[in-house]
């Protein structure tokens, strides 16, 4: 079973129906961990590229149009992806939390994201992530120094780009639409930058001590 089939299983209504049986957050996490699809994701060696693919799935799901009267139909799937990312690549999970907290009508995923941001379930403490827009000048320097990069445009105006910086940093750009107050459609875009590093000294040299906070 490849990653796509596992994702389809996790995003199915039956998966949501099963894990939504429970009456509490702890029980929900227990249920998630017992689900076959989640166990398969955790059981297979998850390389960085696959984990980034899961993050793309998160972006695609939160970009889906939903009925605002009801729970987000992908609440359980988003939680599962966040859970797996947190267990394997906490740096990517932190990016996922920021995205999920902006997603509409999520209940479990929102709780999990809040808990991850609170640092209660993060296993690796040597990862830091900054969710801010760096000064324009620094961004240009950073882009020029990128050794390799890739970008994928996904649903609903979101795009995700990964870049390997010459300093060894992994830089992730997430671009999302911003609604114009006078319009009902996305009329402009802004860049959210996620700088993921395990080395604070390098982080400070790139972002500046005041830039990333």
């Amino acid at each position, binding site marked *: 079973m490849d990653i796509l089939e596992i994702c389809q299983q996790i995003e199915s209504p*039956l998966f949501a129906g099963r894990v*939504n*049986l*429970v*009456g509490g957050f702890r029980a929900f996490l227990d249920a998630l961990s017992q689900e076959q699809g989640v166990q398969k994701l955790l059981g297979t060696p998850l390389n960085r590229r696959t984990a980034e693919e899961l993050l793309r799935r998160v972006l695609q799901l939160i970009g889906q149009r939903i009925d605002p009267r009801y729970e987000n139909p992908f609440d359980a799937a988003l939680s599962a992806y966040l859970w797996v990312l947190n267990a394997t690549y906490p740096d990517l999970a932190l990016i996922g939390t920021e995205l999920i907290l902006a997603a509409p009508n999520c209940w479990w995923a929102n709780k999990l994201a809040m808990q991850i941001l609170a640092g209660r379930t993060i296993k690796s403490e040597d990862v830091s992530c900054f969710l801010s827009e760096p000064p324009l000048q620094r961004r240009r320097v950073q882009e020029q120094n990128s050794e390799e990069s890739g970008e994928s445009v996904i649903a609903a105006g979101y795009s995700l780009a990964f870049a390997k910086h010459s300093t060894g940093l992994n830089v992730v750009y997430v671009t999302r639409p911003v609604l114009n107050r006078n319009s009902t459609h996305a009329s402009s875009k802004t860049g959210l930058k996620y700088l993921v590093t395990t080395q604070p000294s390098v982080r400070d040299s790139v972002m500046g001590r005041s830039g990333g906070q």
Partner: protein
Amino acid sequence: MKAAVQVFTAAYKTLRVRSLSSIYNCVGMVFASRRTVVDVDYLPTILEDDGYRQIPAKEVVEGDVVVYADSWGKFSHVGVVIHHSPDVQSASWKTRVLSQWGADGEFFHDLDDVHPYLGKPKGFWTERSS
């Protein structure tokens, strides 16, 4: 929700749908008049604060509460007893329960006939003074 109900009613023979709503969960159904979701982790506190006491099966009457627990012994689900009578053939009790299964709807079911995620019956509780 409909997909879940189809699967559950096929898998659990004693299951009957009462209503389908995800506004409340099992604790909200029993203790909050079907108005809200209350995390099941608060169940021990609610039982204590509301003066509930655990009772043996022979003292149970309709309207008492049945609590389920997971494999670690923590409370995982709660329902209301709607029928309780001796089952002579099996030398035990025939107990029928009404409970809300998470966000998937409210069901009538036999005491033990629940999804594994909801745990197993741990005991009966009542707020009756006698």
